[in-house]
């Protein structure tokens, strides 16, 4: 009888565990020393000290983020609150004739009031019905609306983390992406964000952590910049606050 997939996985697992010791011992042997099993001293962990000391004041963070995000073809706008953000997205929906919007299932995104402000358009909330094919929904959407978990000014990056209420597809599959950045989440350096993941530890990390620094692009044809190859070609970073 043919091996089932579960049986295959179990067999590969056994093989893997058997090979693991061999593999590691072989490496240690090549390095000419016994296996290292205790954490080694790592004096050069992370960025140089002078870098870790860099922290811009808020206004500079906003200015630099905006500058960097725009430089790569994204749009960055500062808005005073959620209501203004809602109005902004609504105006863009009218401008671009958006008919279908997918948003993450988060309180502040609900407060945008898109459902009531855009009676003509369909607005879906990610994963509200577990039986729906949400990837297909996101692929059909004109707009994806997400709430950034972090942003970094120095590189002009938005960070989004996945969970059951926050689909990875929402920031990826729609034609245009709107990312709300609560201003207090805007950091100076990438390192401020990355070190949070070390602090959180393996068990607490989401499956997907994505840094987004502008619209999808490619320079693969004659080094000519093309926007929107696979991911969203239109990206709005809305800094709130």
């Amino acid at each position: 009888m043919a091996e089932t997939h579960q049986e295959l996985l179990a067999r590969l697992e056994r093989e893997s565990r058997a090979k693991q010791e061999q593999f590691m011992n072989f490496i240690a042997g090549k390095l000419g020393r016994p296996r290292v099993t205790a954490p080694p001293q790592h004096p050069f962990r992370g960025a140089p000290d002078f870098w870790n000391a860099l922290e811009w004041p808020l206004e500079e963070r906003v200015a630099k983020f905006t500058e960097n995000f725009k430089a790569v073809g994204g749009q960055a706008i500062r808005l005073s609150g959620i209501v203004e953000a809602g109005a902004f997205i609504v105006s863009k929906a009218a401008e671009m004739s958006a008919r279908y919007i997918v948003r993450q299932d988060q309180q502040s995104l609900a407060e945008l009031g898109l459902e009531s402000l855009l009676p003509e358009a369909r607005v879906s909330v990610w994963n509200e019905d577990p039986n729906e094919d949400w990837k297909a929904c996101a692929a059909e959407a004109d707009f994806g609306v997400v709430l950034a978990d972090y942003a970094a000014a120095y590189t002009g990056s938005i960070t989004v983390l996945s969970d059951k209420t926050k689909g990875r597809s929402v920031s990826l599959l729609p034609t245009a992406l709107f990312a709300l950045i609560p201003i207090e989440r805007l950091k100076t350096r990438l390192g401020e964000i990355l070190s949070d993941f070390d602090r959180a530890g393996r068990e607490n990390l989401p499956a997907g952590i994505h840094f987004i620094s502008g619209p999808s692009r490619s320079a693969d044809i004659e080094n000519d910049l093309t926007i929107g190859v696979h991911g969203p070609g239109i990206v709005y970073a809305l800094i709130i606050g």
Partner: protein
Amino acid sequence: MSAYKTKGSVKERAELALNDDFLRKAVKFTTERLRIGKMNAAEQHGNWEEWRERGRQIRLHTIAHLDYYLNLFVENARANGVHVHFAPTGAEAVRIALAVAQSKAAKTVVKSKSMVTEELHLNHALQDIGVEAIETDLGEYIIQLAGETPSHIIIPAIHKNRYQIAELLSKEAGEALEADTTILAGFVRKKLREKFLEADIGMTGCNFAIAETGSMVLFENEGNARMVTTVPKTQITLMGMERIIPSWTDLEVMATLLPRSATGQKLTVYMSGITGPRRTEDADGPEEMHIIIVDNGRSNQLGDPEFQELLNCIRCGACLNACPVYRHIGGHAYGGTYSGPIGAVLTPALQKNVAEWDDIANASSLCGACYEACPVKIPLHDMLVYLRRRKVEAGHGKALETIGMRGFGTVAGQPGIMGAAVKLGQLGQRLVVRDGGIRLKVGPLKGWNKYRVAPTLAKRSFRQQWEALKRETANTGQTMDPVVKARMEAILKERAKGGGGRHG
């Protein structure tokens, strides 16, 4: 992949490339842009040397403790629910990937850019068992349609122009597409969107793997790697065993060095850290995730003091863009999966028969531009010399060259003989000198004089004139400035103390 070797020599393939005017123009144009982009980005960021050194230290440390960090990664990735596999050889990696694909009854695999899978020729292996493997990076997709291999690790289709690309894509579209970048990319977006949604397996490489959390990190601009790791139900990642870094904190250094060195970007549009398959209640991301850890010759470098640093490479392609040889001959002339300076060293190094490999290590003027460009300071120019030496030591030197070099050793090893040889040359050259130059195209002068006029030996060498010159300058009566004299004496004292005396 010891069985894989392109026909002919680097020299022969280079000659073909040098006659391909378009290829040379295309490669020059793009590498130049990338190189300038990188230099500007490094300068704008500032303290580049410190960052390089930091990057190098992190890589050195990780490789020196690879058994520890790799094992830690494996344990953490398993705890995240990843199926981890070990592949000492390329064939083993292929076997595991195919077993999973077959068991899943996969019809299509969507792939994001991965040099490891190029090493393994995995696409062919998948096709052989009836699985369609689709490259989704725009450049890779073009190359796949052309039935070629990437000629640059960052810009795979660097050697093709938009008209060639339009022709390829038009065939695929079944209609004539205009040679306009936006139209061409638009077609690929639409075409591949369907493929992403129907694919059974997403296959990726791995830029970095974070030991402490078992996460894998991908850098990309198009979003296709995110597609590949978000949409299909199964993800298979192939990673070189040396891709490890200890922590997310260390990732900041790599994220600083890699995009700037590759394309001059502050960060690629997407940087994704994936920690295991989807969580139970997530509505996207792969349900099943495999990571295949590939050796395939990498361990040959471990413990080899001359080559271990090769494992520090972060695959940014900066050495290709800086290399004047690459600029003229493109990537395919190198004949291996990896091209340019890194390829010239890595290709022979990944094989065990380093010494027997063809003339790839000779395709360098040893100018050191690769080393200068490398974000982790790999001394590629030195490694090329080590490769040449190993070839000679193993008795694979070219007979004629060996005779020449022995002769060189004998002549230049003894001042008397050298002087006599010079005199002989001064006499002999009278036969071939015309207008104070030599245009003859024979022997070693053949290649030289194809592009140049060779100089003649001076009528009287410096050595022969020295006594007269010495007498002449002895009479100038100029004395040394006491300040200078004091400085020179101080330098001598410093040296005598040991430690001092180094100068730049």
